[in-house]
């Protein structure tokens, strides 16, 4: 569904280096990594908000590397949601539909449908200021989903929420993703989130993809000390390596 081929992007001293990922249709994929590892930059490259230096991006088999963000059919929910504070909740959700020239009746119907899906009907007349973190998150999701994108990109969607709400929202995200069969890439630095939602995960560090696989694989067979440490299984890896006489895993690069 979405595939990247060796994409490279440089900004200042940081670079995403030859990043290749293949995510299947309907998959809930989580991209893990410490802060500053390049997760958000990677999402922005997928959206077309950053022009990559080399490599290719495919969506649904079509190359979109040089397409503008609006032509990629991607729903993007950035960190802190970036809801437009000068518009009401309803106008935030309707924003994309209005920009794309939908008729008022169509807009109304789609808003009603999406608001019901995300349980934000009672918020429609409200202003953005004064919404709780969870409410903002649902409105931002509604704004992205109302356009029926092929892919949903979520940048740290629950990091601003408290522990209890985080669990609830993760469960809700997974529920919606399953109902819509939507290919989703969720970026996080939190391992618990991954265990709640992900089909598969990748670990990114310092702009380099360390390992891709199911969470079980990442847990049982980390391919480097960094992955093992990230999965909190460092001791097991060292133990296994020492017993089997395998070479010491590569030292992780210095974090940015």
């Amino acid at each position: 569904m979405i595939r990247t081929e060796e994409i490279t992007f440089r900004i200042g001293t940081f670079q995403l280096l030859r990043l290749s990922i293949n995510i299947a249709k309907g998959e809930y994929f989580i991209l893990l990594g410490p802060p500053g590892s390049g997760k958000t930059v990677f999402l922005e490259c997928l959206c077309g908000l950053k022009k990559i230096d080399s490599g290719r991006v495919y969506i649904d088999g079509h190359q979109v590397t040089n397409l503008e963000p609006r032509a990629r059919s991607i729903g993007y929910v950035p960190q802190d949601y970036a809801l437009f504070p000068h518009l009401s909740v309803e106008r935030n959700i309707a924003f994309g539909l209005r920009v794309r020239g939908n008729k008022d009746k169509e807009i109304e119907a789609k808003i009603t449908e999406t608001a019901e899906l995300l349980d934000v009907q009672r918020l429609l007349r409200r202003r953005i200021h004064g919404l709780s973190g969870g409410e903002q998150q649902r409105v931002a999701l509604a704004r992205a989903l109302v356009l029926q994108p092929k892919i949903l990109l979520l940048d740290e969607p629950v990091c601003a929420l408290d522990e209890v709400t985080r669990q609830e929202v993760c469960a809700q995200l997974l529920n919606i993703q399953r109902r819509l069969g939507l290919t989703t890439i969720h970026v996080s630095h939190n391992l618990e989130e991954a265990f709640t939602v992900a089909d598969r995960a990748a670990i990114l560090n310092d702009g380099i993809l360390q390992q891709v696989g199911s969470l079980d694989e990442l847990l049982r067979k980390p391919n480097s000390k960094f992955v093992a440490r990230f999965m909190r299984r460092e001791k097991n890896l060292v133990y296994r390596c020492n017993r089997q006489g395998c070479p010491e895993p590569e030292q992780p690069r210095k974090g940015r």
Partner: protein
Amino acid sequence: MKTVMDIPVRGWRDRVFSAAAFFFVSVFIIFVLTLIITDVFYVDRKAVTTILASKFIRHALWMSIWTSCATTLIALLFAVPMGYSLSRFRFPGHILADAIVDLPIVFPPLVAGLTLLVFFSQTSPGRWIQEDLGIEFVFQPKGIVLCQFVAAASFAIRSAKTAFDDVDRRYENVALTLGCTQWGSFRRVCLPLARNGIIAGGILTWSRAFGLFGPLMIFVGSFRGRTEVLSTTIFLEQSVGNLEVALAIALLLIVVALIAVTGIRLVGGSVMVKR
């Protein structure tokens, strides 16, 4: 909008803090009002009737209003794209460009008038504009607008840039993914979010243009019924000893400025509430 009075006062330290903040507000307002009241007491009824009856002073008032409004509109026309470019784009020499924007603010006003006069009367590009293109500025009403623009546009540009700086780029990024072109994201998201800062820049520009005096005396002079504006009239009246008339005109200028600035703030305030 939050005010000092909206902050809940709890302990005595908070009360002292609020009182101190309010003290400075009071001192400044009382000082300005005292100056105005002094003028009111100095001016006699005869001076007021003289200025209200004079068609030249009515003309100067009208000139002051329309030229400062025209200047503000032209300044905003430049300020919005310039503020956005300086805020969002990095190009070779952008730091220098940013500094040049502030230059007219630190120019002594007389220098601005002299520079304009030298450019239009002593250089070939200036003479070409005036003589060949036929767009005359020196000692012409159009020159008033040009002078005011040079002296005041920087306020609008600086305010617009600061306003755009304060708009998080992520809003525009989201708008791009939702279907906007770059122009669309600017128009639908960035501009409305920067609106209050731009309005504030407009108020500063208008105020500066409305009260401008020095460069106008040099570049366009103060011809009765032609290039005379209120600020230059005040100078002319006091230079011939009509101090009461000069002060009466000054009061007129203050009243008009107060109405205009308050009006724009009220409109700006209602715009903000609608958002």
